[in-house]
């Protein structure tokens, strides 16, 4: 019986010239499988990491993800341990914290909030020696907020800079 029309036996039965296609398909499938594999290794976020600055006066620790994806809810935890009395602690967050983010909650509420050249100042008040202050902030990523930006966190006591943590944040689409 004749071969069906438009069927080329050499190509469609014996697969001549189609070996390369199979390998291209396998290579692309490997790339597709690579995406979830990379995700397991936190390449696309949002596993939090800790960045810490320790100075004689205090330890400032920032626990937050540095890789995020559009629309995700995430938390930042600022942990200040006073090694000396901090009379009037103030946390200054760089604009990278707020740019393209919805700020849902700040707990406990700071005693004061202000802007310092576009940066956010949160007055925390007195932190006695050998005590800790933990500030929780809940965010949501604006879906159009894609790219890299720097994120700084600086602890002040009165007008004096005590410790600072600088991070880079990446937002994936």
């Amino acid at each position, binding site marked *: *019986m004749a*071969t*069906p029309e*438009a*069927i080329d*036996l050499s*190509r*469609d*039965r014996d*697969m001549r010239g*189609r070996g390369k*296609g*199979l390998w291209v*398909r396998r290579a*692309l*499938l490997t790339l*597709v499988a690579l995406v979830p594999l990379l995700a397991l290794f936190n390449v696309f976020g949002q596993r939090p990491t800790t960045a810490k600055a320790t100075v004689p006066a205090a330890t400032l620790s920032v626990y937050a993800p540095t890789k995020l994806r*559009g*629309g995700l809810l995430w938390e930042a935890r600022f942990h200040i341990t006073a090694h000396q009395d901090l009379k009037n602690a103030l946390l200054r967050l760089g604009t990278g914290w707020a740019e393209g983010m919805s700020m849902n909650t700040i707990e406990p509420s700071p005693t004061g909030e202000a802007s310092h050249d576009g940066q956010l100042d949160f007055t925390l008040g007195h932190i006695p020696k050998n005590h800790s202050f933990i500030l929780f902030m809940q965010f949501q990523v604006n*879906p*159009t907020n*894609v790219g890299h930006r720097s994120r700084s966190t600086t602890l002040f006591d009165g007008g004096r800079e005590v410790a600072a943590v600088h991070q880079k944040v990446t937002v994936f*689409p």
Partner: protein
Amino acid sequence: MDLAIRSVVLYAFVLVLTRVVGRRELSALQPFDLILLIVLGDSIQQGLTQDDYSVTGAAIVVGTIAVLQVATSYMSFRVPSLRPVLDGQPIVVVEDGKPIEKNLHRERLSFEDLMEEARLQQIASLDEVQWAVLETSGAISFIKKSDS
């Protein structure tokens, strides 16, 4: 603008995905083949529009995908050399009643899958079949022998 870009990226991703996962997943031969088809639409939709519930957003997404769809089919129609890439090519899986194991293996099709498809077309035995062709859509066409 980002909605249009998302649409283009996800369209390309789904196009590549449907080409690389193989035809059996597209034809949903077995219950587990359905999984991809079920989760695909839902997952894509969330990544595509995210929190945008507007009519404008929906119009942008649907419009972009419609244009891409027409462009892809036009390219496939006008440029024959692109057809194997965009559509794939048929594969002969049975000739003169005998399954071609190498080709079935290539598409991860078992003899049981083949017979199931044959039964759906009222074919009880491959002896009745002259040709069976796995089409680019994932369906299997059976051409019976002239005397059967």
